[in-house]
């Protein structure tokens, strides 16, 4: 009986094999393929035909001194800063909602925390750019609070124009866009921590800060890392956020480069090769997250 039911998995597995595995193989085939004289990619499906020329060029590009190296470094920096900021915002929020909020306010907060999932990312980003535009409310508020001068003073803002190709604006955009995706896994992992463990720590003499540091923080580690990976992975493939928040080449990310190659410009083979490199770079994070996910669903 059990064996027969395994058949139910067949359509889904076939679907994923055809449209996920084969699709990824298409990236390999194109990235290790060639192009025609009119810039059409010629995929090499047979591994024996693989041409690593584009891959080598992409590699050369992203290595120090290469054309894409600065973009790579910038992307890395953006993602790291955005993830740190997201944690700084998301962790306290998730912590508060999971451990302190009760009854109706907890229900309301949970609804408000999921609400962004029901508003498309692009719409949120668009709304946010409107506010940051000159004369927009957010810009006014930030300027009134003299945050612009503060950021300028520490070199994070150049001039008072938030949307004028500013690193800080892109990072703020990334944070704005991705925090909701971080908060939910964080919330889930914090919510799982048994209240009695904290009580036990207090009982044994730990102050509330001590209990947080020695019990809550270590126990939420896996959830936190999972959440970080969950937002960092898509950030590496993001191109629309910098497009909307800045539009300057100065703030372009790796996603923009790939998008330019594959959608905007002529060199799909190079784009596919860059995609391969990106995937290879992210593989470690992907595997880590998969492991956590499986561990969690096994528990």
């Amino acid at each position, binding site marked *: 009986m059990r064996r027969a039911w395994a058949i139910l998995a067949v359509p889904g597995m076939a679907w994923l094999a055809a449209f996920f595995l084969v699709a990824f193989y298409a990236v390999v085939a194109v990235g290790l393929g060639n192009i025609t004289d009119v810039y059409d990619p010629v995929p090499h499906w047979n591994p024996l035909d693989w041409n690593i020329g584009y891959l080598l060029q992409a590699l050369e590009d992203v290595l120090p001194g290469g054309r894409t190296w600065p973009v790579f470094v910038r992307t890395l920096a953006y993602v790291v800063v955005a993830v740190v900021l997201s944690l700084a915002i998301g962790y306290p929020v998730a912590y508060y909602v999971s451990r302190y909020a009760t009854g109706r306010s907890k229900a309301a907060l949970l609804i408000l925390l999921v609400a962004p999932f029901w508003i498309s990312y692009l719409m949120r980003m668009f709304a946010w750019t409107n506010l940051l535009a000159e004369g927009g409310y957010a810009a006014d508020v930030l300027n009134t609070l003299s945050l612009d001068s503060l950021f300028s003073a520490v070199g994070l803002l150049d001039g008072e124009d938030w949307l004028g190709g500013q690193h800080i604006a892109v990072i703020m955009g990334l944070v704005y866009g991705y925090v909701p995706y971080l908060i939910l896994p964080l919330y889930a992992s914090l919510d799982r921590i048994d209240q009695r463990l904290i*009580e*036990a*720590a207090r*009982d*044994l*003499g730990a*102050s509330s800060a001590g209990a947080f540091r*020695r019990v809550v923080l270590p*126990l939420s580690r896996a959830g936190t890392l999972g959440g970080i990976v969950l937002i960092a992975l898509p950030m590496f493939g993001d191109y629309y956020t910098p497009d909307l928040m800045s539009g300057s080449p100065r703030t372009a990310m790796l996603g923009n480069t790939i998008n330019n190659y594959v959608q905007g410009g002529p060199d799909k083979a190079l784009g596919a090769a860059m995609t391969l490199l990106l995937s290879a770079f992210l593989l470690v994070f992907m595997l880590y997250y998969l492991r956590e996910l499986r561990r969690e669903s096994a528990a």
Partner: protein
Amino acid sequence: MSLVLDHLVKRYGDVLAVDDVSLEIAHGEFFTLLGPSGCGKTSTLRLIAGFERLDGGAITLDGDDIARRPPHKRPVNTVFQSYALFPHMSVAENVAFGLKYKRVSKSEVARRVGEAMELVQLGHLAERRPGQLSGGQQQRVALARALVLEPPVLLLDEPLGALDARLRIDLQVELKRIQETLEITFVYVTHDQDEALTMSDRVAVMKGGKVEQCDEPRVLYEEPCTAFVANFLGSSNLIPATVSEGALRVGEFTLRADVDGRTGDALAMIRPERVRLEPHGTGGENRVPGMVEAVVYLGFHQDVRVRLASGALVRCDVPNDGEAVEHSSGDPVCVHLPANCLRVLEP
């Protein structure tokens, strides 16, 4: 040297979880809170530990008011029902946790942790994680973690609740041994009557947030004040009766008993093991005829159920000591309810 709970009150919204509880617990006493689920045992303990804010009353320990202190500043420690071990720390780290907050040298920490683990016979498991321990072992880690701090008062919330019967009995003995060795005050919560009777110096039986009766196990068992206490501690026959003119009447039979000035409807309480089964027709005071309705073989004793003429069912424990007469369904018998074992309670 004692822990005094003075008119404690705790409310959760509309629920009055602890309703005017006053208790005085002596130093070195093994004191148990016993009662059915939801009667407020845990809440009382949590008030002492400081996890909940008092809605009324006072808590003093050796004369110091501790009710206003946060949990980590109270000289009491807790062993939680679920143990609440830190899953990310080894056994030794768990046990050492609280010592970080005492001004204790490193070597002293190591020594005390080692001692505490020996005390609970866990020395060989120091490096394991809690997840790799059995229930009984976890329980002992929780105990060691609290004991290592040498608190004057240890609170234990159903520490054996999650264990299976055999292990529970072993650990009862061990807990008692440790308590007596260290001369620590134990405030012990359980809903298991056997456990309460076996281990405690004194037991407070709680119901609906109030203390029904607080006394030594023997007194609670022999002289329960209420039907609730009688029923909760061991099994008991509660036979509907009336008291008139200082005598107890069950159906058409009059029994001698200490009616304690009561009149009107009452319950005649007698423990099954105090009921004597005698051959039908045996005469004498406090003898009532009846018919055996069922005999249940229970290993070392038999449970004989006798239907009286009044309709009441009396359970009678007959020891299986190889000497007693065997009874079977339908036999007419005589039930002897000795006067000194009969108690008259409110219906």
